[in-house]
């Protein structure tokens, strides 16, 4: 596909700015959500049979605990994704501000992924015409 230099510059700037913004928001939010995971959620759902014993060992310490936050985050946002673990009600034990942060975190993360990955692939394969 062919693009003019101006269009290429504009699209490249959009992709870069989205990537920077995504990184600057998703990474800190991920850390905050991990360190501030409500104790009630951990006490009630971060145990067997919802998680296997080796998973509990692995995800108890940083940085693997980030994956635990990811699991709780996705289940809170889309409960129907949980077909096996049985933790889809964990959002009931979360305060509103925590749910709001999870919503923002996942939304920004997904948008960043959707815009930057195809954007980079597309821009890497275009031909610039003057």
């Amino acid at each position, binding site marked *: 596909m062919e693009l003019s*230099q101006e269009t290429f*510059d504009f699209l490249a700037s959009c992709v870069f700015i989205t990537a*920077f913004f995504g990184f600057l928001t*998703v990474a800190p939010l991920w850390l905050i959500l991990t360190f501030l995971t409500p104790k009630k959620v951990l006490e009630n759902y971060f145990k067997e049979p919802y998680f296997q014993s080796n998973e509990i060992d692995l995800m108890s310490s940083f940085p*693997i605990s980030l994956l635990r936050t990811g699991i709780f985050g996705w289940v809170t946002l889309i409960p129907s994704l949980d077909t*096996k673990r049985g933790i889809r009600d964990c959002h009931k034990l979360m305060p509103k501000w925590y749910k709001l942060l999870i919503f923002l975190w996942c939304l920004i*993360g997904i948008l960043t992924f959707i815009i930057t*990955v195809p954007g*980079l692939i597309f821009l890497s394969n275009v031909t610039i015409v003057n």
Partner: protein
Amino acid sequence: MQSLVNNSKDYSAEFERRFYQKTAYQNSYEPVFYYVKPGDTLSQIITSYYDIRYGTKEYDYALLQVLFNNKHITNPNSIQPRQVISLLPMTPRYGVSMCLEEDAAQQDFEVLRSKAMNNSSVMAFRPNDSATQQFLSSIPSDPQERDMFWTLAWLQSNYDILSTGAAATANVLGGLAGEQNSGLIKEVDKLYTQYQNKKLTKSQYDYKRRQVLKSYSQKVGPVFEKAVFNGQTTQQAIRINRTKALPANADILKYAGRLNELAKLASKGGLILTGFGVVKGAHDMCQAETLKEKNEIFVETAVGSSIGVVSGLVLTGVLIANPLFWGGVLILGTIAAVGSYAAGKSARKIYSLSSDPIDFVSLTKAEAVCNLGFKAKSTDNLKSFDSLRAL
């Protein structure tokens, strides 16, 4: 795996060769910084590395110059292990290269460093800066730990695309070999002591031992189990030693010790790899010759990191329906690493094709990181330099 270890040893040897290289009567300005080992004395270092005799006029010159260039040595009769001593090249006429003024010494160091930076295989350090001291103090003193350190450093240096996956593995290994799991192996030793003290019968001991080891096997999984116990299962490896040459619990203690060592090395390895990646990105940006190059490195690092993070977020969705095992973390880490590497490279290529690219380095004041350890080339100067080049 063997070739990896051999390569890392070559890398270590090459690094240390450069580090401890003799410089007497060299014509080239090659920076040489000596890393003090236990038992070293300053006179030994000077006589050995300048190939001169103790007590001669040349020695006195050399000593004065070494003290001048190493302000952190307050007492020449007492140097500490892990200190770094810079050794300037010696010239036939002046003995050791002389820099009589502070500015001249600084300027000289900048010449040495810039020459070293042109050769990517040479690592140059400022002996007095905190980042250097911090880096050197992180090199383990134990020979086995040093091997692990250099293996990881070699991996990072040669295959940075793989090192994120390796860092993930190291972190997982640290978790698997950690106290919460290896404590179960020690539990067997306690059970054996109870059995010896007749607090447990033979059948009670056998039953409890089987239960503990079964729990251990389930926790760490079959692959890790066989890797740690040389192809055996936990039940086969953790047994009472029947030969009379060794204590009965020798195997148990051996493997408990090995697991603790692995946990220590793995956690250190994960941190080292992560730290190396971050420092390397910042270092490359600070040392770039032009503002455009700085921006390209910045874009590559930032977009790569961004894609790594959001890929990780998306990939965690897989874990909702699938239990996590240590190989799974390795796969997730490697996918995120490969994705972020490819994205970073693409972003750099795209940025270089832009006709009027945004100056992200100035906009975000990213050069502030250079003040943490590496002196940056001034952005203002680079802007002038770029405009001159454009003319």
